[in-house]
């Protein structure tokens, strides 16, 4: 297996430490960075989770990464957005206040309908039956979020069920994938998911 280089984008918030450790665990190199050259030179880009949408966007703009990331992602850099990282890939969010996102994947981030917070382990249900991740149908992953994706069905790969509705769990557009759950904290399932992600998008 060839070791790949991951750049975990540092936008102030985010559980970088977990991600770095887990990527090392599955045999790859990872750095936490806001350096444009290091981001450009990486094989994969990760936008980490845990934080609020406005805070992440504010920090991306402050460190002059907002437009830079848009550019290199649109140029084809394989990118994985995790939780908050998934959300900032979209058009906008109403978390705390209306904030524009990177607009890479059309759609918006809005309050969860079912309950204020979706926290805990939940199963994936694949909407796109052709997805190469369908092996993870009905497997449990860890979720921790108060806002979720609303957008075109064509972007939706998988969902997860709450008491009252379905929440979009995976979105994808070409080289860009966004996942609402935390693979780095989903034990064996999470490790396998990340390994498969590298295998598919390498």
């Amino acid at each position, binding site marked *: 297996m060839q070791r790949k280089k991951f750049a975990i984008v540092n936008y*102030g*918030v*985010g*559980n*970088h*430490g*977990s991600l770095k*450790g*887990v990527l*090392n*665990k599955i045999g790859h190199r990872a750095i936490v960075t806001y350096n444009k050259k290091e981001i450009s030179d990486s094989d994969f880009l990760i936008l980490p989770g*845990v*934080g*609020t949408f*406005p*805070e992440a966007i504010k920090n991306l703009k402050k460190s002059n990464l907002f437009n830079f990331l848009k550019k290199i992602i649109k140029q084809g850099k394989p990118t994985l957005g995790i939780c*908050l990282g998934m959300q900032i890939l979209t058009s906008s969010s109403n*978390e*705390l206040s209306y904030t524009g996102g990177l607009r890479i994947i059309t759609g918006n981030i809005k309050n969860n309908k079912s*309950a*204020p*917070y*979706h*926290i*805990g*382990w*939940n199963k994936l249900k694949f909407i796109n039956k052709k997805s190469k991740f369908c092996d993870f149908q009905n497997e*449990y992953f*860890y*979720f*921790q*979020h*108060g806002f979720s994706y609303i957008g075109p069905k064509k972007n939706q790969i998988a969902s997860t*069920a*709450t*008491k009252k509705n379905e929440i979009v769990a995976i979105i994808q557009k070409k080289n860009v994938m966004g996942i609402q759950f*935390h693979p*780095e*904290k*989903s*034990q*064996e399932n*999470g*490790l396998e998911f990340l390994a498969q992600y590298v295998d598919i998008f390498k």
Partner: protein
Amino acid sequence: MTIKRIIAVVTIKGEIAVQSFGYRKFLPLGNPETIIQNLDRWGADEILVNVIDRSSRKLEPDFFMLERIQNLRITTPIIYGGGISSVKEANKIINLGADRILLEKLLYEDFSVFKEISFTLGAQAIVLSLPVVINSNRKLNQYNYLNKKEIKFNKNFLNAIEKKLISEILLTDYKNEGYIDKFNIKILNNNQFKLPLICFGGIKSPTVIKKILKNKNVNAVAIGNSLNYSEIAIQKLKQKLTGAKIRKTFYKKFAT
């Protein structure tokens, strides 16, 4: 649907993991990292690392311990509590690999900083620590561990819950913490809070856990040292929780 969780609690005092008895007596257990690593391998749904003496010792969060935990490459969600007094500290804890933080003292001392933390990390990343007791009038009171007094609920705590600046409440039966199956279920009958609960304090047997998890306001139970008694304690416990909506688990055998 999200299922109910079994959260393993590691209580730390003087940089050692301890068995606590009502937060009055403490028995040393050993190195926190070994215990956390075991719980990760044994498939706990979440691990709560609660450093109970950082604030009283006027120390910042235990970043050195968090770095050591980071190096273990734990893949189980972690909640960290202890010594958090600023946005910078809260953020650093998450950067080091915790997924959520547990707050209590800050709400007594500086509500504006607490609010800022909620706006930076998101309420989903914050658990409110709320030790409680049923008073002589059978009403639920808060236990203020700073001055060791039972009080009516502090307005900052009520504000945090009302405004949903936090996502879950760690409701601790502080008097029965550390005592086998002494959790006072009447605490749940008195529950006035509209946010989900994690119950803690004297919870061990499947019978008691099932009763607690039946309550629709309860998302999780937090269990202390009894999960360390054997390598398959978590598995055995979950097998006996028939009818409860919990995640089945597996574990990785210790490599020999």
